[in-house]
Structures are given as C-alpha cells and as structure tokens.
C-alpha cells in the first residue's frame, strides 16, 4: 500500500534578484514500511523535498498525499494534529527544547497528545541509541551526536507511521552512523514505519530499500538497493 504520494512537486523561490528552482517537477511514491534514502549534492533540493513531504512548507505547484489525505486541503490546525499523529521529524538542527531534560524532550510529543508513555520501549530505544545515562541531562550539556540521537529517540517514541529525517547521522562518525541507521531500520520494521532519510553518506544510503538521487531539483536517478 502506498503511504506517501507526491505529484508534480515544484518549489520556486523567486525574488527581484534571483530565481531558484529548488524543486522542479518531482513525483514519487513510497510504499508502506519502505526505507527510502534521498541523496544528492548540496543545494540539490533534498531539504526542500522533505519539507514538502512533511507539510512544513507549501509547494509552488503539485501536491502531497499521505495515507490518501491531501496536505494542501487541510486547515493549518488540522495539519498540525495530523502531523503530530502521523509524522515524526529528525532534523539537521536537532531542535531540542533547551529548558527540558533529554527525557522530557523525548516524551514531549506523547504528553502533548495525552498518550501513555511506554517506559519499556523508551528504555530500549535509549539503550540502543546509547543515551540511557544522559536522560536527566539538559540538551546543551550533550555532544552534537548525542543530541541528534535524542532527537531520533523522540521521533521513534511517538511511533508515527512516517519518519522524515534530514541528515540524521550528519554529525556522527561512520561506524556510529551505520549503527544508528541500523537502529532506525529495525525500529521501522518492528513498528511498521516508513522512513525517508536524507543523507550524503553513501554507506547510509546503501542500507535503504530505495534510493532517490536529486540534481538541481529534479530526480535524476531512482534505484532499488
């Protein structure tokens, strides 16, 4: 079954002095439970694509459907709630709330939704991400990689159907990157989640089911692993 469908996505940034076609007619379809890697040179439009898929930004043209609902047609508040229930994000910047401890950061989306916290799962996730000892610390006392792992844990805990990750392992060494990606994969399989991971690390991309290569806002290559 298809969980994400993007049709004819375009995103142009037009000002008096320049015109950037960050995305130029991108269509794609991602099946349930699939692990998709998006690769491409810097500035090729990867982050833009992810923003469109997550409904963070509106495309100039085209549309995105997630589980058959069009993001475009939702009211903003509706979209927020839809996003909370269905999509988890891991970003290039870690986006942790500075005044909350790592633990509180991880459970924040659950609390917002009033969901019970599965402490067992949390322990498991934190353990495998290697941050179990850091749970009571404040984010700024952690290293970049540790903060990134906390953000990943946060995305996993909400068990969303779709996880969008922008360079989740960008700050990690190659061995840890592989480890974290493996973890993402196994979680995805276990909870039947779909993953879209933007990366520039070949070895990370190689772990995906499907690779999409972007060039100047267009898909120049699609490949099965």
């Amino acid at each position: 079954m298809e969980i994400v469908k993007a049709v004819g996505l375009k995103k142009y940034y037009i000002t008096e002095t320049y015109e950037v076609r960050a995305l130029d007619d991108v269509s794609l379809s991602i099946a349930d439970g699939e692990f998709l890697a998006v690769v491409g040179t810097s500035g090729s439009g990867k982050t833009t694509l992810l923003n469109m898929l997550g409904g963070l930004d509106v495309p100039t043209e085209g549309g995105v459907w997630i589980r058959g609902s069009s993001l475009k047609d939702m009211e903003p508040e509706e979209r927020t709630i839809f996003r909370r229930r269905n999509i988890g994000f891991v970003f290039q910047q870690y986006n942790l709330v500075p005044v909350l401890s790592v633990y509180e950061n991880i459970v924040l989306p659950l609390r917002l939704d009033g969901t019970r916290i599965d402490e067992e799962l949390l322990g498991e996730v934190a353990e495998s991400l290697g941050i179990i000892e850091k749970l009571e610390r404040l984010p700024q006392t952690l290293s970049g990689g540790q903060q990134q792992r906390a953000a990943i844990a946060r995305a996993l805990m909400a068990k969303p159907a779709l996880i969008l990750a922008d360079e989740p392992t960008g700050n990690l060494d190659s061995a840890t990157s592989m480890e974290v990606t493996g973890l993402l994969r196994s979680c995805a399989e276990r909870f039947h989640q779909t993953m879209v991971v933007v990366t520039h690390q070949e070895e990370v991309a190689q772990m995906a089911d499907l690779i999409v290569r972007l060039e100047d806002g267009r898909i120049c290559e699609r490949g099965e692993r």
Partner: protein
Amino acid sequence: MLIKLSLRNSRHQLKEYGIYIITMIISVCLLYCFNSFVFSEMFQKVVALFSISGSSGMKIIVVFYSTIMVFIIGWLISYMLNFMLRKRSAEFGTYLLLGMEKRQIVELYILENSILGVISLFGGLILGIGITNIFNFFAKKISEGIVIVLNGFSYNAFFLTLLYFVVLFGVLTISVGIKIRKLKLITLINYERFNEAPGMKDLKKGVVLFVLSLLGGISSIFVLYKQPLEESNNNLILGCSFVIICLFLLYYGICPFIFLCVKRSKSWKYKSGNIFLFRNFANRINKITIQLGLASSALVFSLLFLSTGISYGNNVMELLQLNPFDVVILHKGEKTSLRPYYEYLEKEKLIDDSCLYNLYTTNRTAIMSIRNEELDEYFKREGINIEAKEYLYDENKWDMYIKYSDYNSLRDMLGYKPVKMSDDEFMIHCMPYLSKGIQEQVSQKKVDVSSLKFIGIRDEEFQQYDGYGNGQEVLIVVPDEYVDKLQLAYSMLAADLTASVKISDLEKFVLKFDSLEVMETNIIEGTEDSMTKLSAKKGVDYLNGRYVLLATKVQIVLAASLCFLGTIMSMIACFVLAIHFLSDNLIARQRYAVLNILGYDKKMLLKLFEKYIFAYYLLPIVPALILGVGMAYVTVAQVTKDFFIIPVFTETLGITLNILGVSVLLIIMSFIMYAVITYLLSRKEVFT
C-alpha cells in the same frame, strides 16, 4: 505541562537574556519617574498657575509629552519582544514540529511573558521609586532643604504606570502572539535567516529624504524663533514635532547619502577593515533607523529641557541674590508696631540679626521720574510693549526715603561697609541699571532734594526688585531728622534667620499671627491711572524675603522639573542606543570570530569594534546637538530676557551662551559615560 514549560522558559530567559528583563525594568522605571513627576505636588502647582492665567497650554504639553513617553516605551517593549521572537523562533518551530498546536504555543508565549512582565513591573517600580527619591535628595541638598520636586511615593503615579505598562505590554505581547500564529512553520524554523540584512535602500529616495529632513530641521528652529514660547504653546509643540520628523527622515536618508560618499572614495574603502566596518554599518543602519531617530530626538529634548531648566534656575538664583534678606515683614501706610513679630522670632531663636525701621515718602517724583525715563528707554530699545509707569506699584509712585541710621544698620546686616554722611547730605541706593542715569542727572543739579547735597550712589543688592521691599528699584538715604517732614510709607522688619530654620518654622510663624500673611505679588489690582497695587487687606502685615520667594516662586519648580525631564530624556536616548548594541552582541561575536579565523588579529578586531561603536554613537548626537543648540538658544535667550521685567542682567548673550555651554557639556558627558559603559559591557561579551 504547559505551565511547567513556561515557568522554566521564563527562568531560562531571565538567565540567558538579561538584556530583555533589564529593558523591561528600565522602561517601567522611566514611566514611573515621568508619572510621579506629572503627579507631583510641585508640578500640579505649575499647572494650576498656568490655568489661573487662563492658559490650558500646560495640560496640552503634559499630554504631548506623555504621548511621546508612551510611544517611546511602547517601541522599546515591542523592539525587545521582536528581538526575543527572533531568538526563540527556532524553539517555537520545534514545538510546532512536535505537534503542539499554534494556539498552545501562543498561550505558552503569553504565559511566559506575563511572568516576566510581572517581574519587570515590580522591579521597575522599585527602581523608579529609588530614583525619584535620589533625585529628591539632590534637589533638597542643592536648594538647602526647601525644594521637593517629587513625592517619595505617589499612588497615582504607581497606578498610572501599572496601567500604561499592563496595556502596552499586554497589547504588544498579544500582537506578537498573533504574529506567531500567522507565521508559517518553515518561516519560524528559519526566522533568523529570513530576518537578516535587508538590501540597500533606494539611493535617490534616500538623498531626497536627507534634503527634506534638513529643511524640516531649519523650519523647526524657524517656527520657534518666529514666535517663541510666549502664550502660544502650540508653537512649541509644532517646533518639537518638526524636530522629530526631521531626525527620523535624516536617518532614513543618511545611509544612502554616506554610501554615495564612500563609493566615491576607493582609498578609504579598502583600507584595513574599513570595508567591513562600512558594510557592517550600512547593513545595520537600515534596521536601526528608528533607534537613531528616537535617540536623537530624545537628545534634542534633553538639551532643550536641561538648558531651559538651568536658565530658570539661573534666574531664580539671581532673584534670590536681589533679595538678600531672609525675611522682610512689611506694613503699608499707617503706623503700627511690628515688634510682636520680632519678639516671637527672637523667642523661638530663629533670628541671627534684625532691624526694625520705616520707609518714608512725600508726593514728589524727582528720582522716580528718572527711573521711569530710564526704564522707558530700555523698554523702547528692547521692543517691549509696556510703559514704565505700568510697572510701578501704586504705593511706590512717589520718591521713597530711608533714615541714614537705619540704612547703615541694614548695610551692617548684609555685611556691606557703612557709609559716612553728614546732616546736609543725601545719597541714593538703587539697582545697578539706574546708577549711571541717576548719577548723571542728580550731579548735574537737574534734581534737587530739598537743598541737601548729593554725595553718591550705592548699588549693592538691597531687596529693591519687584516693588515691595526697600523701594521700587531706588531709595533715597537722608539724615535722620529729615524724615520728620515726610509721611510714613511702610513699617518694616528685616531679619536674617539662623541657619537651621526650615520652611515649616515659617509656616508655623504665619499661622501664629492672624495679622500676618505671605506676600503674593500675583494678587494685585489695577488703579484708575493704569497702575497696579497690592490688594492689601486692612491691618494685614506681609511676609516677604528670600525664604518666601523660595517657597512660592514656581520657577524653582519649573527649573527642577525641566532638569528632571532632561535627565529622563537623556537616559532614554542612551538606553535606546545601548539596547540595540547589547542585543546585537551574539551576532557581532560570530562576525568577529569569523574575521578572526580569516586572519585578523584580536587587536585589529578590537580597533574595528571601537571604530564601530564610536561611529554608532556619533551618528545620533551630532544632528541632535546642532538642532538642539539652535532650539535651546532661542528658548534660553527668551527665558533670560523675559524673566526680569527690568534690565537685571547687563549682558544676556554671555549668559545664554554660558548656559548652553554647560548643558551641552552635561549632555555630552553623560552620553560619553553611557557609551563607555555600553562599550565595556559589550566588549566583554563579544571578545571573551
């Protein structure tokens, strides 16, 4: 959850963004100071006096300045809120990303801000009360315990400040909340990026604005000069409005103007680091137009208030010198004894030295006519549209005499050398402006005082200004027996009080005697031949002298009030400038760090930084001083000229320039002080 988060966020902001809280606290403090001034007893007195004379101008001015005040404070708050929004946008973006609803985020934001608002409010009020009390302390010190400008604590000011702040802060917080609601998630996450560096403004437009602003500046001075102060306060407001407009236009236009100049000079541009300095400035100046405009306007007002205040103060000082006796009690016409007053003062140990004496008159005007001639000449020369005899109290229209012996005891009281005079001689004591004319005319025998021989003139300060004292500007000293032929004009008691006497002692004194009243020269009535006279009640004795002047002259209050307002304004100016600087520190730090990596060493960077801060502070003060000095010159000259009806100052230009010099110096000094503080604070943050 939300409450916990907002509590933590508030605490975090208290720690991380001290500048935010400090801004809020100082804003509240300034508001309180201003309000407590508006509600002070002294200022109310000024307003009341103005409205007695049928002018509502004072009220309009109060409203005008309150509006400006509220506008400035509102701007400060809104600047800070937006600054904080920029700093925290990514954080809000995160909340949104995690699925918090916009509504919840706005609630969170408002809750946090309310906590910070309450803290600032009370911090600011406490600081404000502190500052008003300090100001009072100094005012009291300077005026020897007599002037209290502000109430130590004023409920009205307290509640008005509360109201202003709650409304301003509330409205602005909510409007930022609405802004957050409208912002897209993607914009929030990248808010800082989007907010950087707007492009260069249109050059031509800038130059046109620059020229317009110069015109505005000239017209503001012109408006004031054409019809300064006087009855029409609208002119003052018009002039001030022109100044504000002019300065704001100036800063909209000045950047393109400088840009044009710099573009021409390639050699300057590429000299070590100048290009960075210039870019830095050009980039920022677009964003700080309002700061520069506000600071500059505030400086103009500060200079205007301060110099006007000082010139009123100067006039009052002069007035006090003209009235060298601490206390003078005066009874008009028929003979009475002032001895009971003397006995009371003596018994209460209030007196150091005193003299009971009389003034005499007869219906001749030999000397008074010289006085009238001289004064008429002066009025004509200055284009003042009154006649000398209109400025002459009815009781004083004839020549006034004093006994030689009394005269010498008064001189003794004042510490002047005694004069020697024999039985067939007379002399004259007058105010300095009359000496020459009287000397000439009397010694040419044009005037004859009952065949006595004229031996000279004295013109030390002798309680002769404004009528009810030792004659109106002039007094004839005659041998003791001579007065037998004259009528009694006044019975007088002059006294010097001991150093510890307070105004309240005198109030008690006045209350003690039904027959004694404080002299109010405002309460006068006209006579048939267009002279004025004191509306004296029968059998009443009047209390006058230095102490009474200190307690009743509104100009003292005016002087203190204006100095206070001037101080507030200069604080605002410096604060508005500092705020930008300090809030920009983080970005500056990054910039300098990058330059450091690129190979600039610390010393060069520090020099660059110093140049920048110097230019930044120079920019608002230069136009402010030019405009301010122009406006202040007009008002100070007017105040100096108008205060005394008769020519008391021989040289008004010198005095005006002196006052201007002092106020400019004060402003520049306080400005430098604030700049140095800002420099030190931000150097610490940027370079360590």
